[in-house]
């Protein structure tokens, strides 16, 4: 019973997406099932999370094949935290998309594919097998390809071609890396790999394999020289899709980097150096990119890239404090980025434009909504006591400890740039006198909607803003959580023991 527990969130998503396919043309039924299912999923995940919090890491050997021969599922505190965050973001986007997605798009199976995407995310976080991770990645990207092209507008298709090509290339590089790793060790189980890779004499070969993994995951996580597909594609789909992409998809790449470089390729000064350099360049280039954009969705896209840098930086410094900072940032970032793309969708629905130059006067027209949007925007900047502030303390402390002053410069520069960008956005969109936006005839304006549809826009933003506020004001709890995750990540023996001990004496 308890062994299968960790699979329940995953199975529930699978069940939901299959169930939704039976209601292909019945959009209202799909809306209800998706929202109710997401609430159920959140409840279940909270239950599993508290179980793992109290009882420690749980593993499951699929089909009772003993590790390292079968596929292992393992839920340590990092994995289950991310599953929980996926459930929170998934619920918000599910409610948001039931209002924000136009019925034409819903009719082509938006909800089933959305839940397949969540299934893939859950699987990627929970698996303990590197080839299985590849398969979950493919489930994620295939679902995301469908979501990004759904609707088939010109900009969407162009963005999709770029998104598809780079993600396919990333998958192939990842597959190549798995092949080389299998040739080196003859194993695919991550815990087994952690033992075997550390015993290999030829370190140069190991480093080359690690760099292949770094490139493959780096493209997905959108780090410095590999991020160009992201700002070219993330602003093209509807904002509900952008929300789930911006909040979770790049973070899977970050998760895979953290997992692989804290478990399999550990303690290599050369690799840590590369990670540090990449992180610092990501912080600089993403920030500068955000500065010159005019479309608010593009601004947020560049800010995603910029803030990926913080997490990679924490991984590159690889001390317990740094990893704790990176995990805290990851938790904060998933919630805030999902929220921001939903906010951009709300602004677009109200005004009919996403251009900062054209927008304006939002504060005088909608003071309450503006105050609501203030929370995610300034959480992102990290004005204390909002949520973005706390992880930076850990990261800055860690960069003093490891004497990586360039990293310190990167952190401060990126925070400053984020502040400038958000202040500019606030001034342009909320305070400035509105410019001339031509009224569109066939446009679904916010003020023309019914009461319930309006609620569908606002409720998820309120929900995620409250989560953000909790992360900010309850920072102590999140800090305890991320320290525990960091402890588990620093001691890879814990992970290895969890996989193998359980295999020897199954309960």
């Amino acid at each position, binding site marked *: 019973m308890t062994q299968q527990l960790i699979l329940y969130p995953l199975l529930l998503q699978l069940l939901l997406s299959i169930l939704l396919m039976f209601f292909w043309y019945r959009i209202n039924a799909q809306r209800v099932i998706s929202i109710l299912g997401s609430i159920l999923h959140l409840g279940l995940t909270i239950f599993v999370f508290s179980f793992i919090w109290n009882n420690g890491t749980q593993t499951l050997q699929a089909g009772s094949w003993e590790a390292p021969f079968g596929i292992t599922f393992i839920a340590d505190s990092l994995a289950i935290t991310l599953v929980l965050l996926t459930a929170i973001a998934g619920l918000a986007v599910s409610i948001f998309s039931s209002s924000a997605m136009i019925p034409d798009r819903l009719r082509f199976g938006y909800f089933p594919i959305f839940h397949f995407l969540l299934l893939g995310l859950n699987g990627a976080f929970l698996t303990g097998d590197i*080839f299985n991770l*590849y*398969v979950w990645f*493919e489930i994620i990207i*295939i679902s995301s*390809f469908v979501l990004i*092209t759904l609707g*088939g*507008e*010109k*900009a969407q*298709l*162009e*963005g*999709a*071609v*770029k998104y*598809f*090509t780079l993600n*396919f*290339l990333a*998958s*192939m590089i990842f*597959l*190549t890396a*798995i*092949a*080389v790793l*299998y*040739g080196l060790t*003859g194993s*695919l189980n991550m815990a087994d790999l952690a033992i075997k890779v550390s015993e290999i004499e030829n370190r140069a070969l190991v480093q080359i394999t690690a760099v292949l993994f770094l490139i493959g995951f780096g493209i997905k996580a959108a780090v410095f020289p590999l991020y160009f597909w992201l700002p*070219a*594609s993330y*602003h*093209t789909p509807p904002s509900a899709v952008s929300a789930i992409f911006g909040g979770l998809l790049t973070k899977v790449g970050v998760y895979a980097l953290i997992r692989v470089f804290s478990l399999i390729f550990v303690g290599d000064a050369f690799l840590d150096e590369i990670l540090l350099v990449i992180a610092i360049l990501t912080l600089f280039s993403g920030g500068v990119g955000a500065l010159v954009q*005019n*479309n608010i969705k593009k601004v947020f896209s560049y800010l995603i890239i910029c803030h990926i840098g913080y997490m990679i930086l924490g991984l590159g410094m690889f001390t317990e404090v740094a990893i704790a900072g990176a995990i805290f940032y990851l938790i904060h970032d998933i919630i805030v980025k999902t929220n921001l793309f939903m906010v951009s969708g709300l602004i677009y629905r109200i005004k009919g434009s*996403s*251009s900062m130059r054209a927008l304006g006067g939002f504060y005088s027209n909608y003071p309450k909504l503006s105050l609501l949007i203030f929370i995610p925007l300034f959480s992102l900047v990290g004005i204390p006591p909002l949520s973005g502030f706390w992880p930076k303390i850990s990261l800055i402390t860690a960069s003093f400890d490891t004497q990586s002053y360039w990293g310190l410069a990167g952190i401060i520069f990126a925070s400053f740039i984020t502040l400038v960008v958000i202040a500019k956005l606030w001034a342009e969109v909320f305070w400035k006198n509105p410019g001339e936006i031509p009224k569109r005839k066939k446009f679904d304006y916010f003020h023309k909607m019914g009461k319930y549809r309006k609620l569908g826009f606002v409720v998820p933003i309120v929900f995620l803003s409250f989560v953000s506020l909790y992360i900010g004001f309850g920072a102590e709890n999140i800090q305890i959580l991320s320290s525990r995750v960091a402890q588990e990540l620093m001691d890879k023996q814990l992970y290895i023991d969890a996989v193998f001990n359980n295999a020897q004496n199954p309960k």
Partner: protein
Amino acid sequence: MEILFAIIIGVLYAAGIYMILRRSLVKLIIGIILLGNGANLLIFLLGRISEGAPPIIPEESKVFLEAYADPVPQALILTAIVISFGLQSFAIILVKRAHKVVKTDDLDEMNATDEDS
């Protein structure tokens, strides 16, 4: 045999990446297919090629005593082939739709996503 395989894989990777770097959308698809096949062959090669040694244990022994063909790479390749087949068919449909809507197959002319809006 291994040398020959290594050369073939190298050529497939090089040709695949070259084709992806071209501007034409059709060549992009060819590149994707070549790259996928190259990766599959690489798994096959790195799983050690052995001839006529099935992984079957004689009745009286409990472990493998001699060299045997590793069945895992074949399972991996099978999975990878199915996945890359799905991706390739999606790519073909995507490119067809994109060509119909954008009315060009030159990637350089696909600039709508970079325009200031």
